[in-house]
């Protein structure tokens, strides 16, 4: 065995004798053999000539024997592969037009696919950067009646001691806060966490420490842990920060540590600036005084599945309901428990759009593959003579097929390199885009917003890593098979004699060949129609969503937010005084035509809702009463944001805390509770607490959407801020000119009233609208781009196939013309053939799109997944483009120069 190996190695390295010499040795050996055979035949009485003839026949193909002997050499296989690669490279270099077209087509397809896959990989597949991230679960208790999907703090405390599925349970809440005592007053996001929260995720402080047990009890210590971002931004990376006192919402807190830069909060949309201990009360009884709604993350015990944990939590929450007060128990009706992997919870709504993008881009890649496969087929057909000659010289079918495949592989690898470059460049661009927080940067921000906003802070995580490389390599091999196999098998199938005879002539290409080419084209057209129809559905949805910004006028409006939640604004009077001093300062700014403050602006989410009861109807029990959203506004609000009042009056300065309570309701409210006739009606609202005087409806305003543009309109009551001051103060300023120019003056005006008060989210209303639709817009644009790319590729494909077939049939066309066919007739002949294909492809495409469009339904607004307009437009557009593409070669066929064709034959 060893010796055999050595012997093989010797031949492999030394290659024995030079190839030329070995060949002549073999020839001599064969000659000797034939001579002896001839002699033997002469000996039994044949003539010398006949004997030699017989001996040669008996011996068979000399070349074949030579080849087979040569193939016995160890390492021969590898040598021939190298040979094929060299030959393939030469072929591709000799045919630059084809090579360039194929590499660009495939490269674009692969680049787009790899980029989208990078996003999918980074956002959906890559594990979260926490210790044993796969065992981290998002735990919540969903109450469908009031859309609550958190855990009440007493339940959390009980679950901690009772749950057997979880090794640990940790919780957090978050709120906006004001940081003062360190430079400019800054608005920050503050996360209140349990002491085990950071250790459970595996996060340790880079300076100082995180919270210790007991610090998260109610009335615990005033300590704070800073994020790396805030520490660098606001505290100049002070290494001795531990022990320093800062003021959070007016309360002194001691810094005990700083988190490392790579730590990411599980809710990426938040990225808190500071962490403070959650002041948990120890009681597990729901009737205890204070109840927080907590976001809960748990770590499963080893061996426990998410399903088991879910079953346990459901039983637990149901059992807890026994001890709820009656109102709570009713609100909890239909409750569910959710235990889902943290990763899935975080990615949440982004999952579906990303997967839809991946499928769409995959379709584009398939079309690109079909195109290149068709090019390859055409090339294989024009190389029939070459293939036949190689076959005649003894190349086996396998060898010929391999040659074609190796050429496809080389093409795919070049394309993969191009595709990877595209993916790396695109993802780097995505990461480098910053969200500008001042309206001045609006120009630059257009692009940045379009690309970055849709997936928010998640975008920073998108990158090309080993998985993306592996994915690209995978699709490179897939495209090799897709683009190479059909032409390779088809191109080498012809029997030799036929090929050698017909290759010289320009005859109609084989029936089978044509069938292949046409099926590929059919598939291309069908796929493109699917993409076009999807794009159509999304564009129509987008247009519908744009109509949802009705009820207010987003033009020329600057908005900002400030929070009155520090100790200085603990009373309603102080909050009111702040607003009263601020508004005149803003109205005095040059170019400002109207000014208002409100607890929330259009598109922003509501932050207060209240149960209501009616005077003439007996109040239903607590928990069954209808809830409406409550917005507090200053008198000029409706004029400033541009919301029309349909009936009644607007607010005026005489609506004060001392006058009779009044409200303006939206149309949804009026229709739902008063059948549209709401003016002058009275009702009670819990917003002021129980036993408050009834409030009178003095006006009905247009419906405005809150919490994004795609939410349904909610019944809403709007009350004078003087009668119900809230701690969030959103400011709206309507200007005569460009609103962005007032941004700085607005900030200064707020600081002139209170120098410790941060102002944030300074944006024009137009920007807010554009943010609200950012993700939808990006997805629509991408899919529309993919669809256009698909149409272009398809048109190129149609053009390619028919101009090839016209060249092949030049002789036939010449004969037709010579026999008296009109040039129009020839044109019609080609276009009819194309039209038949395109029609069938289109019908298949519409069928496939009808079957697949349901997958899009969650992204559709105001159109059904079977929207006739999108489908017929997709079909018409594709058919028209493809027919146009086939008309060019058809026209060429009709222009066939009769004499030239006849002469060339």
């Amino acid at each position, binding site marked *: 065995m060893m010796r055999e190996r050595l*012997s093989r190695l010797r031949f492999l390295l030394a290659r024995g004798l030079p190839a030329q010499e070995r060949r002549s040795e*073999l020839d001599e*050996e064969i000659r*000797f053999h034939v001579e002896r055979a001839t*002699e033997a035949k002469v000996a039994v009485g044949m003539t010398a000539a006949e004997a030699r003839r017989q001996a040669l026949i*008996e*011996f068979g193909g000399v070349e074949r*024997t030579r080849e*087979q002997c040569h193939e016995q*050499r160890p390492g021969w296989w590898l040598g021939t592969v190298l040979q094929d690669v060299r030959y393939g490279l030469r072929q591709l270099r000799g045919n630059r037009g084809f090579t360039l077209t194929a590499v660009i087509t495939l490269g674009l397809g692969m680049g787009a696919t790899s980029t989208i896959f990078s996003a999918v990989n980074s956002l959906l597949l890559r594990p979260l950067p926490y210790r044993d991230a796969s065992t981290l679960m998002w735990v919540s208790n969903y109450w469908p009646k009031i859309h609550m999907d958190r855990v009440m703090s007493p339940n959390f405390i009980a679950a901690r001691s009772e749950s057997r599925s979880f090794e640990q349970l940790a919780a957090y809440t978050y709120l906006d806060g004001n940081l003062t005592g360190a430079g400019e007053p800054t608005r920050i996001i503050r996360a209140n966490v349990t002491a085990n929260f950071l250790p459970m995720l595996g996060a340790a402080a880079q300076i100082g420490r995180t919270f210790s047990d007991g610090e998260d009890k109610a009335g615990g210590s005033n300590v704070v842990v800073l994020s790396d971002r805030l520490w660098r931004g606001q505290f100049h990376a002070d290494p001795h920060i531990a022990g320093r006192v800062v003021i959070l919402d007016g309360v002194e807190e001691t810094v005990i540590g700083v988190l490392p830069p790579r730590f990411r909060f599980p809710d990426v949309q938040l990225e808190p600036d500071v962490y403070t201990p959650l002041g948990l009360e120890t009681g597990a009884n729901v009737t205890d005084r204070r109840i927080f709604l907590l976001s809960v993350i748990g770590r499963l015990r080893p061996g426990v599945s998410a399903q088991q944990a879910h079953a346990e939590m459901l039983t637990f929450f149901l059992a807890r309901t026994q001890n709820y007060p009656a109102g709570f128990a009713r609100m909890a009706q239909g409750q569910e428990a959710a235990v889902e992997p943290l990763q899935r919870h975080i990615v949440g709504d982004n999952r579906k759009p990303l997967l839809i993008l991946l499928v769409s881009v995959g379709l584009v890649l398939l079309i690109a593959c079909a195109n290149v496969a068709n090019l390859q087929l055409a090339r294989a057909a024009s190389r029939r003579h070459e293939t036949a000659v190689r076959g005649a010289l003894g190349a086996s079918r396998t060898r010929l097929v391999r040659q074609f495949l190796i050429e496809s592989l080389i093409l795919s690898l070049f394309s993969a390199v191009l595709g990877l470059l595209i993916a790396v460049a695109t993802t780097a661009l995505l990461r480098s885009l910053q969200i500008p927080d001042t309206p001045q940067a609006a120009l630059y921000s257009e692009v940045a917003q379009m690309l970055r906003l849709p997936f928010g802070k998640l975008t920073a995580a998108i990158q090309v890593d080993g998985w993306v490389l592996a994915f690209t390599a995978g699709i490179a091999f897939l495209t090799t098979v897709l683009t190479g196999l059909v032409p390779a098998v088809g191109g080498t199938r012809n029997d030799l004699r036929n090929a050698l005879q017909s290759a010289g002539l320009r005859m109609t290409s084989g029936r089978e060949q044509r069938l292949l080419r046409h099926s590929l084209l059919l598939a291309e057209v069908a796929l493109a129609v699917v993409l076009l129809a999807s794009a159509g559905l999304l564009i129509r949805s987008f247009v519908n969503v744009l109509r949802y910004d009705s009820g207010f006028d987003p033009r020329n409006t600057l908005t900002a937010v400030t929070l009155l939640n520090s100790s200085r604004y603990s009373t309603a009077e102080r909050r009111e005084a702040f607003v009263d001093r601020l508004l005149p300062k803003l109205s005095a700014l040059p170019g400002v035509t109207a000014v208002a403050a409100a607890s929330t602006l259009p598109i922003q989410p509501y932050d207060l809702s209240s149960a209501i009861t009616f005077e003439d109807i007996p109040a239903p029990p607590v928990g069954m009463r209808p809830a409406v959203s409550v917005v507090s506004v200053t008198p000029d609000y409706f004029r400033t944001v541009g919301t029309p009042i349909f009936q009644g009056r607007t607010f005026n300065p005489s609506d004060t805390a001392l006058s009779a309570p009044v409200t303006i309701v939206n149309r949804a409210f009026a229709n739902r509770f008063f059948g549209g006739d709401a003016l002058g009606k009275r009702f009670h609202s819990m917003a002021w607490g129980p036993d408050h005087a009834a409030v009178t409806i003095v006006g009905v305003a247009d419906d405005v959407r809150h919490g994004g543009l795609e939410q349904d309109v909610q019944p809403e009551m709007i009350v004078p801020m003087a009668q119900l001051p809230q701690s969030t103060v959103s400011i709206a300023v309507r200007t005569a000119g460009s609103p962005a120019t007032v941004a700085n003056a607005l900030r200064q005006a707020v600081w002139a009233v209170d120098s410790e008060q941060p102002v944030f989210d300074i944006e024009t209303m137009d920007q807010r609208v554009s943010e609200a639709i950012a993700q939808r817009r990006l997805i629509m644009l991408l899919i529309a781009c993919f669809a256009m790319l698909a149409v272009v590729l398809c048109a190129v494909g149609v053009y390619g196939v028919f101009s090839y077939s016209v060249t092949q049939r030049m002789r036939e066309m010449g004969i037709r013309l010579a026999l008296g066919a009109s040039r129009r007739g020839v044109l019609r002949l080609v276009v009819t053939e194309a039209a038949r294909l395109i029609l069938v492809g289109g019908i298949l495409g519409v069928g496939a799109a009808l079957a697949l469009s349901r997958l899009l339904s969650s992204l559709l607004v105001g159109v059904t997944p079977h929207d006739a307009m999108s489908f017929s437009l997709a079909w018409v557009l594709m058919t028209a483009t493809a027919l146009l593409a086939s008309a060019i070669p058809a026209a060429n066929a009709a222009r066939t120069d009769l004499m030239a064709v006849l002469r060339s034959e």
Partner: protein
Amino acid sequence: MPPSTDLLQGTLDLLILRTLALGPMHGWGVAQRIQQVSKDALQIGQGSLYPALYRLEYKGWIRSDWGVSENNRRAKFYALTPAGRKQLETELETWERLTSAIGLVLGPIPGVGS
């Protein structure tokens, strides 16, 4: 031409090794010898003979030298190497085992008589 018996590649290798065990021989000689000994039952196609010889040489079981043939012409003579002799022994053993096993299975068929 009588239909040539299809030989398994391994069997052809074995036949060549066994034939060369008698002494160095050229390709023509090997083919003739096998044909004679098998009383024309086995005709080695030249198309498979030479590749087999090359294969065995690459494996190091036989070696080749140019010499002078019985009719005074230059010819390539193949001879068994020590490794080839060993290989022949193992292959013969395997062959014995295989044929006796097949023989046992085939056996006399009841009712057909032998």
